[in-house]
């Protein structure tokens, strides 16, 4: 027992020595490459290895592989905690001292940031800031694209100063979250069980699928799916799906309640694994879903498709923000970490999971051409496509559901959001769940 323990210590100290060297090498290389050795924040590699940053967020990007790679590249520790969206919001506001870095979605940011639990990031301290997609800066994927409804990330992306709590209308030097991950969501289907082509959001209300559908029970996201469905049915025309009036909310929930009473829904899900199980077990054949859940169903050898729909996608985006209490060495380390996050390796990792990286060009360098073509360009895969952990995701010849990055992100109808009438919406949603 003692021996085992000893070897273990030795091994771990070995790793840290090695990674320290590597880190030092990377730092030197980085400093040399940037051509400006200004004395900060590169030279404290000696004591930074004692730093531990506590990051918490939703399961999507809280990946141990990222913490390991961070340790290897930067030398300090990252402690990850995964929670569901509601708990993340709750913890971000009520226990601001319990984390250093919050990995949250933009709609959560809209709720959390005004509470003063977080501090804004100085964009001039980030080398990779200019690599961030304009989607997060001015809301436009391409200069002529239209801005979708809802809490678009750029609308809550900036504040006026370091301690600002109200969002700026335009780009400033102070960012609330540094965007890291985003995607366009749609309905997942079991092509083998639906028995007909699915083309619209309203297809989930088809009586043929009675008792075989599900939607997610996270009000801020569920209401969006509900709105997409009602609009597609032609029942309601919304002014802004991301900020509904009380009348619109009432009518939306009335339509869903009616469907629930008629037995249209099999279940409501709240977490990722619930949606995977519902789909894989065949309890449900069409439901709101997240992209890695579709991949998880498929990896069990069960057919599952992330069906693009005529009305477009419901998009979401997340990023990293700093807790208000962070200062000194920890703050420097946090900046270093966030800059590293944008530098490509993580982006490539996320791209390979079916999400999108906020700094596309940096992640391209960390992906093979075939991978880039499959995930981003929407072209047929030349060889087998593997997940970041090496499992087979798609066989050669497959193309991504929904096509290229520009096809998918260009067809966003609305972003996940928090509405002015949030309290009313939540009440109505609760009534719907209970009814």
């Amino acid at each position, binding site marked *: 027992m003692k021996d085992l323990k000893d070897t273990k210590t030795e091994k771990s100290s070995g790793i840290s020595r090695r990674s320290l060297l590597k880190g030092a090498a990377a730092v030197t290389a980085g400093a040399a490459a940037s051509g400006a050795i200004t004395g900060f924040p590169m030279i404290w590699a000696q004591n930074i290895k004692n730093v531990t940053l506590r990051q918490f967020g939703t399961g999507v990007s809280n990946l141990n592989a990222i913490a390991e790679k961070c340790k290897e590249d930067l030398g300090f520790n990252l402690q990850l905690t995964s929670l569901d969206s*509601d*708990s993340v*919001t*709750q913890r971000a*506001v*009520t226990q601001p001292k319990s984390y250093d870095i919050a990995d949250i979605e933009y709609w959560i940011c809209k*709720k*959390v940031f*005004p*509470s003063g639990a977080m501090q804004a990031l100085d964009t001039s301290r980030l080398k990779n800031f200019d690599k961030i997609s304009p989607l997060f800066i001015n809301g436009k994927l391409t200069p002529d694209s239209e801005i979708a409804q809802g809490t678009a990330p750029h609308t809550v992306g900036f504040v006026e100063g370091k301690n600002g709590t109200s969002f700026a209308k335009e780009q400033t030097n102070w960012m609330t979250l540094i965007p890291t991950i985003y995607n366009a969501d749609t309905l997942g289907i079991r092509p083998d069980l639906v028995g007909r082509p699915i083309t619209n959001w309203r297809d989930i209300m088809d009586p043929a699928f009675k*008792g075989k559908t599900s939607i997610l*029970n996270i*009000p801020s996201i569920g209401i969006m799916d509900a709105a997409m469905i009602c609009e597609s049915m032609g029942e309601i025309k919304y002014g802004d799906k991301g900020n509904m009036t009380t009348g619109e909310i009432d009518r939306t929930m009335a339509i869903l309640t009616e469907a*629930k009473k008629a037995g249209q*829904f*099999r*279940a*409501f*899900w*709240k977490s990722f694994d*619930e949606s995977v*199980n519902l789909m894989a*077990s*065949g*309890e449900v054949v069409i439901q709101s879903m997240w992209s890695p859940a579709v991949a998880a169903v498929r990896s069990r050898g069960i057919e599952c498709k992330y069906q693009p729909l005529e009305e477009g996608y419901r998009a979401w985006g997340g990023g990293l923000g700093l807790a208000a209490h962070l200062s000194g060495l920890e703050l420097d380390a946090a900046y270093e970490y966030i800059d590293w996050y944008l530098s490509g390796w993580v982006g490539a990792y996320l791209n390979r999971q079916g999400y999108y990286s906020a700094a596309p060009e940096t992640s391209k360098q960390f992906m093979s051409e075939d991978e880039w073509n499959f995930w981003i360009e929407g072209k047929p895969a030349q060889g087998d496509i593997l997940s970041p952990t090496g499992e087979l995701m798609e066989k050669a010849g497959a193309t991504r559901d929904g096509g290229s990055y520009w096809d998918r992100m260009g067809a966003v109808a609305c972003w996940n959001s*928090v509405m002015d009438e*949030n*309290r009313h919406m*939540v*009440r109505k949603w*609760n*009534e719907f*769940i*209970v*009814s």
Partner: protein
Amino acid sequence: MPMINSKNIHSYWQSLPLGMVLLAFLVFPIAVITVVSFWDYNEFSIIPDFIWTNYEYLLSSPVTWKAYLQTLQYALLTWTITLGLGFTLAYFLAFHVRTNGMQTLLFLICTIPFLTSNIIRMISWIPLLGRNGLINSGLQSAGITDAPIEWLLYSDFAIILAYVHLYTLFMVVPIFNSMMRIDRSLIEAAIDAGARPYQILRDVVIPLSKSGIIIGSIFVFTLVMGDFVTVKIMGGGIRASIAVLIYNEISLLQYPAAAAGAVVLLITVIMMLVILFRLVDIRKEV
């Protein structure tokens, strides 16, 4: 007189530790919940205030009433079934199993389901009851049904089933306990006096195991009234109870609304307990 006084003081000292624990971990939290239930709130914070809107909304909303009806229905059904099962099991253990060793062994067997966590016990029903689960595929391959039975899972049936599975033991234990205390000579006397078996049951066994029945009922009622995990997992998120309502509000940061819900639930449960305690004086009969 002084003697009695000093005795009294001593017993107060002795009860002080427990009193402090109860004060710190029971009375204080409930007081905080009650205070918060009068506060105001917005999306990200709770605001100290004194308003009645939380209660107003709670008590005037048809949703609350529906949820209460639903929860009471769960509680009543669960109570009826667990009482039937629990009483029968306890009766068998107490009066039909002869040896002490066998009684202990069978009693231990009753507790086996409790060796795993209640979440695991609940979740293991899902592969059994699902649309393509064991029961449905068994029924279909035996030609008994053509299509899967939908109401087995994510339904009231599934919820009641899980409750019965989880809580029957809470009925068995106290009833068994009070049955073991029944003097066997009473039953012999009844037989000698010419009582028929059901008369013995009605006039001797049931009245004498009343305290066990009431204690078991208290367990089952309070557990079902305050439960949300079972409803959430077995109901697939489309069924709801009071506790699910409170849970939803907590997860949406609406603490004051949740606190108001908790206070009303507490009052309801206490009222039910008062009624149950009226039926039997537990201290006298145990």
